[in-house]
């Protein structure tokens, strides 16, 4: 019976993080990096690595910040922790993946104030027990990662007619997709598709 309950809770965690409460497409959080940076598959992968490491490690370490410290100080500590987590990741990126990470530009250090850290930690993640919190953070991040990759691939294919070095034989290109406004419109369409799927699932269940 308990196993069943745990299983159901875990399924809900996966379903919410990836689908129902998707960070970008359903909650409207961490939008800037995807719109500004995920214009190619390569930059999307660099973004995914940077975002996932910074966010997961920051939330994990921040969860040890005592709750009896006043909120105004706690929020500063979370961002300081994020900025400190950024240091080894930036050193790693500079040493091993310089070309890929340079495509992120200033968006790379700006990830330390992403809204998953600033808003979701207090109102959601830290209200859960540690294990549940870590699994939720993982799937919320994974939800973001999937959207970043999809957006990067779509924008690269339809804006340039190629993916990486491989030219894809499509008969038309939409160069506006690599712009900021193209990014917003594409995410809007993807958010509508996700919402439609959710409506269909709801009507069948």
């Amino acid at each position, binding site marked *: 019976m308990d196993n069943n309950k745990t299983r159901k809770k875990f399924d809900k965690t996966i379903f919410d993080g990836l689908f129902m409460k998707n960070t970008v497409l359903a909650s409207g959080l961490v939008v800037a990096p995807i719109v500004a940076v995920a214009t190619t598959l390569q930059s999307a992968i660099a973004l995914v690595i940077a975002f996932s490491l910074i966010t997961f490690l920051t939330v994990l370490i921040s969860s040890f910040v005592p709750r009896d410290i006043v909120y105004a100080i706690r929020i500063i500590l979370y961002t300081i922790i994020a900025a400190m987590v950024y240091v080894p990741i930036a050193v790693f990126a500079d040493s091993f993946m310089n070309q890929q990470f340079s495509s992120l530009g200033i968006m790379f250090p700006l990830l330390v104030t992403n809204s998953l850290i600033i808003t979701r930690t207090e109102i959601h993640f830290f209200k859960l027990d540690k294990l549940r919190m870590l699994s939720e953070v993982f799937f919320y991040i994974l939800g973001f990662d999937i959207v970043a990759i999809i957006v990067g691939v779509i924008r690269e294919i339809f804006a340039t007619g190629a993916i990486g070095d491989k030219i894809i034989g499509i008969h038309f290109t939409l160069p506006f997709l690599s712009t900021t*406004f193209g990014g917003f419109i594409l995410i*809007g369409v993807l*958010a509508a598709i996700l919402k439609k799927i959710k409506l269909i699932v709801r009507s069948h269940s």
Partner: protein
Amino acid sequence: MDVVMNAILISLTAILVENTVFSKALGTSTLFLAARSRKKFFAFGSCITYFSVVSSVIAYFADYYFKENEYNYIFMPLVYVVIIGVVYIVTLLVVWKLAYPFFLSIKKFIHVSAFNCAVLGVLFTNAMSGNSLVEYIAYALGTGIGFIIATFLVSAVYEKLYSEDVSPSFRGLPITYIYVGILAMAFYALSGGTITL
């Protein structure tokens, strides 16, 4: 006179050509929060402007001190976060002590308006431009005003975007994204951008 004209030009550029939301997408999540309330969007935007300007002034001296360091790209986020943190705490204490009713009205969103991509983005953009102190302030002010304009444009139609006139699949967040995209396209054209469709 030249300094004033230059500052005005930098501010106008930050408002129209390099609008933080419409041209760089910085602070979009914060904009979605601010646009929910027509009454509070101006206070929200003003807080962002305040944090951008005051943090920029302090960051100017930090940039000057650290600009020769070859590893500054690694620890500058930490320096900027500490600067914003100090400004945030001092502001909270002053407002709490001197204007408690005002403190109560802003306490729900002041942390989001201090720690976001728009404010931190101003500090990084200023550092890269290597401008003077007046130009730092002008760019920060322009970014804040640009954010207020962006929030106003979304806030003005917020209820319509969530109304039943919009088809269920697009209602709410999806149509808001598309609307912001169309506004970003208009700002792109305003700044002289062209693109082949």
